[in-house]
């Protein structure tokens, strides 16, 4: 063994204590200014920006499992901003801009990879919809074009142009479309937040919410009770369960969303390809595996099992798009619990309980929004409940005034 290596082995402060990414676990304090429930990307990003921009560090992030083990670990990491509504496109474009410089910000490689995203139109109605999305996207500074079948063939030579007898008529080519390493995003934010003094408590489940005179005053956990000035709830598929403890209902239903991945092969597919009509999207990871997924399960369930039904229908369509995939082996399959709203937009901002802030309803599309969610939720908390303009349209009470932000067509099977 080389001596230089032995030196590290015998050195007392190497490698662990001094170089650990996260501080060692500690006891809960009796009270915090801010309690964030859920250490997914959204929770730790909120903590990070609270500490970094607002100097608020008396913050505990409470996680019932482990850091980034929820949907943050399960998503297929599509990052894009080619939505349909002005409100949506503005919001997601900000997120894409933040993602582009996140590796530099963390000094940690999140493997941001700008491949472009190609959505396929198989009907005239889809072509019209794409034209509208391209214009709205360009208006807000995104790079999106409507392209013809010849251009599609040049981008993805191995694509079957007549899948399931539904010829491809046009494509929405979104050059800003990208992917990143989802775990790294959670780790980067968590590291940055804890270095600035935020406490991250894993294996700490919030079991009840203490509300007095319409205002949240503390939370109960499996490790004891704590008092707090305010709470941010960022728990994705479990949103309705905790909201019920705080005493209100959400316009959310929880559905499983499944995805799967094949054995790795040589790189052949650069863009992310999705077909809303075939309920299917396919992309190749930097390790060479093909990841694919589709829409949520057909009925609500709090269970992340995988089903044969979904595999059958999804694979049938994936093989229509890329016939040679029929010869590949599936390696893994998994599911996450997605908190679906009926307009496919999130719920962010105030709740019926004072000082209890909501970040929910992220369904199948919330990974791409992680940085901008963190920034806007941090602003909301730091200002004591002044809702930033960017997220005003996503208030929960839009459902009471019938002012939904309809992103259904632009979400579909693309996430």
């Amino acid at each position: 063994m080389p001596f230089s290596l032995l030196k590290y082995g015998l050195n007392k402060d190497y490698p662990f204590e001094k170089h650990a990414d996260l501080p060692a676990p500690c006891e809960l304090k009796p009270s915090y200014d801010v309690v964030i429930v859920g250490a997914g990307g959204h929770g730790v990003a909120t903590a990070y920006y609270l500490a970094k921009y607002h100097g608020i560090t008396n913050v505990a992030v409470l996680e019932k499992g482990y850091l980034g083990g929820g949907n943050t670990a399960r998503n297929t990491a599509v990052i894009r901003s080619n939505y349909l509504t002005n409100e949506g496109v503005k919001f997601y474009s900000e997120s894409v801009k933040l993602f582009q410089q996140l590796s530099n910000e963390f000094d940690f490689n999140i493997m941001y990879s700008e491949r472009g995203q190609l959505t396929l139109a198989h009907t005239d109605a889809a072509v019209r919809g794409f034209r509208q999305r391209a214009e709205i996207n360009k208006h807000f500074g995104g790079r999106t074009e409507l392209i013809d079948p010849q251009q599609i063939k040049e981008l993805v030579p191995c694509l079957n142009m007549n899948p399931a007898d539904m010829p491809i008529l046009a494509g929405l080519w979104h050059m800003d479309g990208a992917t990143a390493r989802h775990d790294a995003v959670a780790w980067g934010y968590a590291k940055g937040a804890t270095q600035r003094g935020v406490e991250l408590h894993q294996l700490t489940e919030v079991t009840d919410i203490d509300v007095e005179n319409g205002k949240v005053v503390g939370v109960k956990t499996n490790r004891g009770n704590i008092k707090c000035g305010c709470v941010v709830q960022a728990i994705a598929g479990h949103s309705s369960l905790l909201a019920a403890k705080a005493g209100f209902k959400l316009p959310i239903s929880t559905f499983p969303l499944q995805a799967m991945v094949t054995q790795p092969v040589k790189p052949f597919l650069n863009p992310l390809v999705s077909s809303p009509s075939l309920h299917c999207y396919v992309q190749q990871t930097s390790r060479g595996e093909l990841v694919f997924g589709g829409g949520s399960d057909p009925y609500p369930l709090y269970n992340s099992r995988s089903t044969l039904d979904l595999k059958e229908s999804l694979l049938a369509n994936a093989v229509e798009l890329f016939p040679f995939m029929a010869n590949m082996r599936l390696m893994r399959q998994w599911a996450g619990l997605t908190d679906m709203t009926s307009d496919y937009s999130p719920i962010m901002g105030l709740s019926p309980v004072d000082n209890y802030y909501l970040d929910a309803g992220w369904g199948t599309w919330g990974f791409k929004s992680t940085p901008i969610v963190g920034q806007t939720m941090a602003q909301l908390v730091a200002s004591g409940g002044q809702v930033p303009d960017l997220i005003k349209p996503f208030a929960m009470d839009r459902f009471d005034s019938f002012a939904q932000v309809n992103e259904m067509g632009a979400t579909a099977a693309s996430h």
Partner: protein
Amino acid sequence: MKILTCPLNGPRNISEFVYGGEVKDMPDPNTCSDKAWADYVFYHDNLIQIVKEWWLHAPSGYWFIAERHTASDEIIKTYDPSEIYNTRIEFSTQQEERA
């Protein structure tokens, strides 16, 4: 393959059925507030428990009620809606009166 037992057609593959939402009491659309109507349409309990739900057997166009556990996915029982809904619901609005 998951099997759902239709009260009309017997046990069938669940892919033949369409989920129709939680069974809730409908407020009177002619008299309720906008908030009460929004509650009815958009807000859900969405808890882990046995829930009553609407299901449609698509090939036969038949709606019925199922009781199902939302974590184990166990279907406890299914029955015809007439077991709960046995009086006529009046949907007509008071257009004439207002006009």
